[in-house]
């Protein structure tokens, strides 16, 4: 679980954070905070699907479900059970 949190957080920092001085944590709003836009969300979803070998249906890939690393982990976990 902690490994997963770290992996997703690192991916978000490396791929989407534009200002290298900005810091984010597991609860930082990603979508409503403007860090990941709705188009880029597609690539984040694809990353999760590839890494965890899951399929997230579009209707569950909502801005709310992707709005923080912690929320993303809850979503991913639901497909791993």
């Amino acid at each position, binding site marked *: 679980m902690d490994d997963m949190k770290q992996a997703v957080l690192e991916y978000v920092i490396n791929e989407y954070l534009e200002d290298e001085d900005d810091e984010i944590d597991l609860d930082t*709003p990603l979508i409503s905070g403007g860090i990941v*836009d709705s188009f880029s969300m597609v690539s984040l979803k694809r*990353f999760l699907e*590839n890494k965890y070998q899951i399929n997230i249906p579009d209707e569950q890939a909502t801005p709310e479900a992707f709005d923080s690393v912690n929320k993303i982990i809850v979503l991913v976990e639901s497909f791993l059970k």
Partner: protein
Amino acid sequence: MSQFGSYEERIKNFSWSMAEQELEYRPGDVINIGWYCSDRICQQGKADKPALLWEGMGGKEKTYTYNDIRLASNTIGKFLRDLGIKPEDRVCLFMDKIPELYLGFLGVLKIGAIAQPLFSAFGGESLFVRLEDAQTRAIITQRKHVSKVRKVLEQMPFLEHIIIVDYDEKKELREREVAFSLEKATPVEQFEIHPTTAESPSVLHYTSGTTGKPKGVQHVHYSLISQYLSAQWALDLRDDDIYWCTADPGWVTGTSYGIIAPFSLGITQCVQDIGFSANNWYQFIEKKRVTVWYSAPTAIRSLMKAGEEIVKKFDLSSLRHLTSVGEPLNSEAVIWSQAVLGLPFHDTYWQTETGSIMITNFPGMKVKPGSMGRAFPGLTATILDMKTYEPINEPSKVGLIGFKPDWPAMMRTYWNNKEAYESKFINGWYISGDRSSIDREGYFWFAGRDDDIINTAGHLVSPFEVESALLEHEAVAESAVVAKPDDVNMEVVKAFVTLKPGFEANADMELNIMNFIRKTLSPLAMPQEIEYMPSLPKTRSGKIMRRMLRAREWGEDIGDTSTLDND
């Protein structure tokens, strides 16, 4: 009762001089949009009226009165002038929807320079192509975006100043970089505004073309006339409104109707600079008591997707007029808003090139769900035969939308590209590139584009630009990019690629290519799907048959394949 009143009466008595008189402008006078949007409103006794209610991330809020925006635009104008920026120099505004974007836009115009707003999500390559074409002298940006400028800086000797509006002194400024803080700068009370006239260049917006580089659509200060009038008639903006235009000023709606029109009318407008969520948006409307809302079909469809229950949590009773722009507004969205919000969205149709609203469902008129509405008074709009470019006078027959020039906000040229500009006019008509029909009552019904341009969430993406960027990826040998239908965004980008030997066509490579385009061009241009192919369909002369791939995505007939190379 709307300000617009009767369509027939407006047509009968129409003259653009109506707006000129309201703005106390006479042909030959000085006309400067920066002055009209701030100083003039203050002179009308509205200096203390809120002009901009801004809300950013983390609950940050700022309010600017008309006097504040007058002083701020003076201050930015003076800073630019002191740097040596001259009239008609291009100054790029490359920021999120922060107050400096709105105030800087007016400051640039006040010194007679040309404002070149660019969408802040653009990557380095998209930025470079547009700055190089315009030979931009200065760029105003934020710390978070400066790395994208630095990446392509060596290729841009013409770019003399990189102005950072939120420099925090944590790291040293680099070559050509300079800090500017609106909060720390001494407000400039008295400022000599450059005496621009009607045909002085004002704004340069870049738009995508099917082939070749993006084109710089150049507007002039006289555009104010039609932007001012159409905001009253099509958006029904009134003095006591709280107006919310959700468009980003990196695109034309965000400047024509997100800065120029509301400020020149002395309206209070609000801006939200946080990411989209249905909850955020409804909360914002409730909190700011928004009365007039100008948004886009993709956003409306996203709200529809969020459901009706969430709407009930908010008091949206302040809303009185809803409008939409950017892509065709489907009838379901109009019917939904009538049922759920109690008001229909009114579609407006126009383009970066036209500068102001051309066709709309006017307030007070019958809204035909799914229709773009009727032509703005003073315009001659028609449907042209796609081969002869002669008007079609047969109701419901599809052709190209054409307009008789001129109207005040019409583009004056494509920057550095007179040939492309002239190609937009045939038989005396401006050819929009959009297909439509007209019904017996004069309502236009959108039928599609006449080219391969992809309209995704109301933003135009050039397949050529994405294909070129794909070829810069180390694994891609060939590429073809088409629009793919999408329930929310209307269209999204889809890429077909062949890979070079030694690279494996798998899911990780797909993600790698997607991210490459997202960072090189923009998230909008990122293919939402990549399909690997052993080879792309080509004509015998070697041209990739993009048309065939597009038809396949849309479930359409692939047409004539006699020129297909089957080898």
